[in-house]
């Protein structure tokens, strides 16, 4: 049966555009502008879903995304909010939480065994015996959760934009519209956001039977559209409040991060259901839902119904229902004093029976609870929340509209750090302390009459203007007049329960009473035990009622109970909106492509991707590394070191700067020579090491290990600012490539390409020279990190690949081989070099790694010197020593971090260990107690499986280089 009304003033649907879709296998037709729910309701469909826990049939509750009775899936997306999602052509929809369809759900029996399943039952019922828990877990997991995740979901990139304004106004109801116009008139740039398809808030549906307010709405909206200062985001919700007024505004196609100078929250209120037996039957709905249905979508909520109310709003709803052709059998007012105003008088004139001081005791279900056939109305005692059943009156009807009160939509205000106090005149939490730049207006601010809301918007806008430094006149708003819009305790006890507080999670009044009995009588504990407000609608229709129940149980005023934390997001936001582009910034050297083609196995080192070794088919990782190492030891190898941090330090104070920054001396360093540098922090802890090459009197070239490069450069900048020396720092890490040629044949290969003499005699350790390779200017530094004979060749990054290839070609006859970082680690270990960050940790001082030679304590200052003076007075606790295992060691291979054990106690640990093909035995570095550190001393290493490896302290290098 069609429930579609004739055309309504201001309706949101286009009746000339039909849309066909299916729901639960049946075909229906709606109009463009319909939501999924409104199209179904118009087609006479009442049962839209099944409840989460008891699988009870559910219809419309709020028609505003304040509940999740109507969750549907189209096969790809799940948990689509049917109440607010626009109908589109060809949708094929099913309710999510059913086992065999929304009408014949096979899980509906759960409702009849609900007394066996009180809140918290599974915490207690299934933890013993533990062996059975995996079985129960499967059962519970199947029952829990809503909808089915589609694992073939396509990757959808949603846009992310930024926007900026003077004032962001959230909620375009009367107060929001008024605030926007006032702010725009004060020359402020305004962004106005509303989650509905059209602006207007309650002006779009709360009419009390006449359409006068439509004209006001049209005028307001026309002014807003005409204002060049106002930018409107409709069908967009403010998802959360973040520091310094950043608010992500979510639309169907993505997120806009809005940064405002001030924010006005005019988000209004959520209508709260009065709680009585079977208040969840299809046909029972909030008064505002019935109004939305009529005025937005031209749908008749029911044919004959009653209104249960506890405020003035219920009477307005009754007038709207009558105007839409619904027969209103009665208005049931839960308040003993009732309501006296023109709406009441008009209803009486229209012959509507008004029961003052009565409640709906229960709604009578039809077969299968798929709808309702009547309401039992009884006298109501407000102080005890009990109904006088002896005087029950049964009213035949197919629907109930409920209006008992409101809860502020204050999530964003809470997130901004607002203070709220309870106002007894309106029985509502209202803001009483605002963080800077946050303002509230309208019903969320406790202002209810339409006129006052318009004024409150102007008031908030004038406060924003003066906050932003404009001279504007103050606006005042009169305090609330008349009856309270919310009832302090709109509950009706019933021996059979099923009087629902939270429709998401099927939570009844008795669940709260039980939770309190169990000791969960604090609002945060009660929330977690009962799960109230933890469903997908996050307490929008339930938290306020939960607070009222707990206040009653504990016999405390509501404000003493407090509220739970309101976290982002305001509505569930699809992952696709949040997900990034999987963009991970990383750096590649200009030789990367060659490495890849050569079969390199890459590892991440800081932001860089580096070859660990070059995979050879048929060889294990270990064998490959050993082969690469042998090539270097026997002839020559090359490694791409372009990732190394490179910094130019220039200026008259360059040497002085280095002498303060590093532990060594550089003032007397000759141009064209390089020296070792060791960096400590202020605690005297080893941070990094590298090479300083003096290129000119006032110019040094520094290398920093790859993973420390960014941090060390930052520290250089910081100390330079403190010392105020005449020095310039240039980070040339990306500007220069570096190739290291190493091995006994290195000079032979290199000399084929350069005109300078790079022989052992002419180019000793520490030499540096500028020359050319194939016409490209290069800088060559003699270093000895991986082999006794090794040359570091620096060139402009763009030429690194051609020089790499030239070196490979020149070294072909010598069997030149590229090697990776894993091999480099083995090579330096064979020479006995420790690596900061690998063989040292966040506490290692230079004495422990025997780096005394690098410390120039005679200097007036260097970073860490004062701390070293203190450390030097104390006995050493550990020392890094080189060790070998016996040549014929056959036990388990010790690993990095295996412990050094003496008499059952821990004395140290292994930091590096490997089989050395050059030394033909297992070699390593380990921290040991000082008394164990003498040459030839034997100590124990405990392996992973608990075996003991005997290690002997030796001299380095581990082999005869």
């Amino acid at each position, binding site marked *: 049966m069609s429930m579609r009304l004739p055309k309504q003033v201001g309706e949101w649907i286009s009746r000339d555009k039909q849309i066909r879709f299916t729901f639960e296998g049946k075909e229906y037709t709606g109009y463009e502008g319909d939501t999924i729910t409104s199209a179904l309701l118009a087609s006479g469909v009442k049962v839209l879903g099944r409840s989460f826990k008891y699988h009870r049939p559910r219809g419309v509750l709020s028609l505003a995304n304040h509940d999740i009775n109507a969750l549907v899936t189209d096969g790809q997306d799940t948990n689509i909010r049917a109440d607010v999602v626009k109908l589109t052509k060809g949708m094929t929809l099913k309710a999510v939480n059913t086992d065999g369809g929304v009408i014949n759900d096979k899980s509906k029996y759960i409702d009849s065994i609900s007394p066996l399943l009180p809140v918290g039952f599974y915490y207690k019922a299934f933890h013993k015996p533990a062996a059975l828990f995996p079985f129960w877990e499967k059962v519970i997991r199947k029952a829990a959760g809503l909808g089915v995740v589609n694992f073939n979901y396509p990757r959808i990139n949603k846009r992310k934009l930024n926007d900026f304004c003077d004032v962001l106004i959230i909620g375009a109801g009367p107060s929001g519209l008024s605030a926007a116009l006032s702010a725009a008139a004060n020359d402020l740039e305004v962004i106005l956001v509303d989650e509905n398809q059209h602006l207007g808030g309650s002006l779009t549906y709360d009419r009390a039977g006449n359409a006068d307010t439509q004209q006001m709405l049209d005028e307001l909206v026309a002014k807003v559209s005409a204002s060049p200062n106002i930018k409107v985001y409709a069908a967009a919700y403010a998802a959360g409040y973040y*520091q310094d007024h*950043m608010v992500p505004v979510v639309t169907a196609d993505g997120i806009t991060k809005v940064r405002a100078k001030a924010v006005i929250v005019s988000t209004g209120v959520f209508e709260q259901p009065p709680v009585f037996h079977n208040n969840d039957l299809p046909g029972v709905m909030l008064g505002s839902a019935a109004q939305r249905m009529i005025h937005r979508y031209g749908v008749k909520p029911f044919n004959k119904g009653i209104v249960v109310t506890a405020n003035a709003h219920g009477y307005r709803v009754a007038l709207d229902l009558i105007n839409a052709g619904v027969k209103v059998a009665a208005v049931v007012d839960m308040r003993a004093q009732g309501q006296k105003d023109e709406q009441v008088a008009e209803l009486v004139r229209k012959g509507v029976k008004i029961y003052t001081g009565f409640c709906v005791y229960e709604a009578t279900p039809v077969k299968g609870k798929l709808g309702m056939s009547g309401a039992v109305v009884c006298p109501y005692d407000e102080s005890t929340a009990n109904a006088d059943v002896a005087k029950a009156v049964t009213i035949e009807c197919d629907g109930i509209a409920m209006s008992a009160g409101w809860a502020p939509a204050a999530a964003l205000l809470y997130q901004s750090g607002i203070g709220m106090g309870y106002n007894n005149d309106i029985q509502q939490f209202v803001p009483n302390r605002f963080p800077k730049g946050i303002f509230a207006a309208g019903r969320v601010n406790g202002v209810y009459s339409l006129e006052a809301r318009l004024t409150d918007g102007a008031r908030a806008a004038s406060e924003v203007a003066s906050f932003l430094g404009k001279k504007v006149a103050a606006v005042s708003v009169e305090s609330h007049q008349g009856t309270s819009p919310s009832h302090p305790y709109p509950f009706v006890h019933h021996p059979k329960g099923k009087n629902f507080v939270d429709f998401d999670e099927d939570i009844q009044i008795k669940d709260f009473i039980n939770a309190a009995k169990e000791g969960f009588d604090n609002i945060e504990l009660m929330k977690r035990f009962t799960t109230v407000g933890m469903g997908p609608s996050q307490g929008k229709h339930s938290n306020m009622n939960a607070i009222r129940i707990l206040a009653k149980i504990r016999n405390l005023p509501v404000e003493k109970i407090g509220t739970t934390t309101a976290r982002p997001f305001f509505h569930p936001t699809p992952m696709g909106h949040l997900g990034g582009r999987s963009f991970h910034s990383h750096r590649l050297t200009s030789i990367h492509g060659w490495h890849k083609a050569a079969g390199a196995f890459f590892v991440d080192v800081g932001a860089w991707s580096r070859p660990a070794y070059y995979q050879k088919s048929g060889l294990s990782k270990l064998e490959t590394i050993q082969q690469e190492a042998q090539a270097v030891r026997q002839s020559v190898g090359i490694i791409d070191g372009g990732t190394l941090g490179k910094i130019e330090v220039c200026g008259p104070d360059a040497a002085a700067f280095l002498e303060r920054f590093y532990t060594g001396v550089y003032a007397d360093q000759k141009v064209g020579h390089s020296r070792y540098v060791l960096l400590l922090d202020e605690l005297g802890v080893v941070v990094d090491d590298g090479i300083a090459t003096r290129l000119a009197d006032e110019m040094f070239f520094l290398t920093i290990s790859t993973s420390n490069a960014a941090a060390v450069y*930052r520290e250089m*900048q910081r100390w330079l600012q*403190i010392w105020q020396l005449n020095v310039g720092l240039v980070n040339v890490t990306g500007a220069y490539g570096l190739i290291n040629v190493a091995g006994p044949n290195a000079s032979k290969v290199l000399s084929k390409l350069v005109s300078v003499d790079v022989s052992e005699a002419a180019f000793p350790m520490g030499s540096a020279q500028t020359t050319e390779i194939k016409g490209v200017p290069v800088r060559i530094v003699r270093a000895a990190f991986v082999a006794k004979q090794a040359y570091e060749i620096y060139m402009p990054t763009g030429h690194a690949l051609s020089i790499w290839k030239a070196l490979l070609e020149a070294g072909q006859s010598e069997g030149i081989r590229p090697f990776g970082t894993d091999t480099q680690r083995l090579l330096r270990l064979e020479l006995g070099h420790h690596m900061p960050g690998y063989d040292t940790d966040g506490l290692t001082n230079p004495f422990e790694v025997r780096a005394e030679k690098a410390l120039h304590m005679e200097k*007036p200052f260097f970073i860490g010197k*004062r*701390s070293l003076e203190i450390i030097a007075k104390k006995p050493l606790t550990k020392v890094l020593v080189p060790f070998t295992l016996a040549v014929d060691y056959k036990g388990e291979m010790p690993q990095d971090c295996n412990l050094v054990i003496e008499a059952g106690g821990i004395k140290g640990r292994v930091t590096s260990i490997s089989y050395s093909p050059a030394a033909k035995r297992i070699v390593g570095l380990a921290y040991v107690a000082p008394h164990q550190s003498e040459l030839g001393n034997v100590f124990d290493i405990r392996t992973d499986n608990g075996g003991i490896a005997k290690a002997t302290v030796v001299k380095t290098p581990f082999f005869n280089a």
Partner: protein
Amino acid sequence: MKLLNCPMNGTRPLSEFLFGGEFREMPNPDTSSDLEWASYVHYRDNAPGVKKEWWYHSPSGTWFIAERNTLSDEVLATYLYGKAPDATKTTKPRAKKEQSE
């Protein structure tokens, strides 16, 4: 996301900045006692309140000092090292707050 006012580049989102730890005045290494020095390098009271902190604006490589109330997370002033707006009165919440916004 929070905003921070870099003295060289103006107000920028926090994602462009790195925290560099609490700023402490270095005692004279030549005259300070071991205890004074150890306290300088090791001791942080971690008590909430207005702290001087090192912050680094990554894209431009600018270190600066921020005076921040760690309780309210309000930044009261930002300036380059040694360029405090008024060396005798380092915290002037009201006046500086407006500037940093």
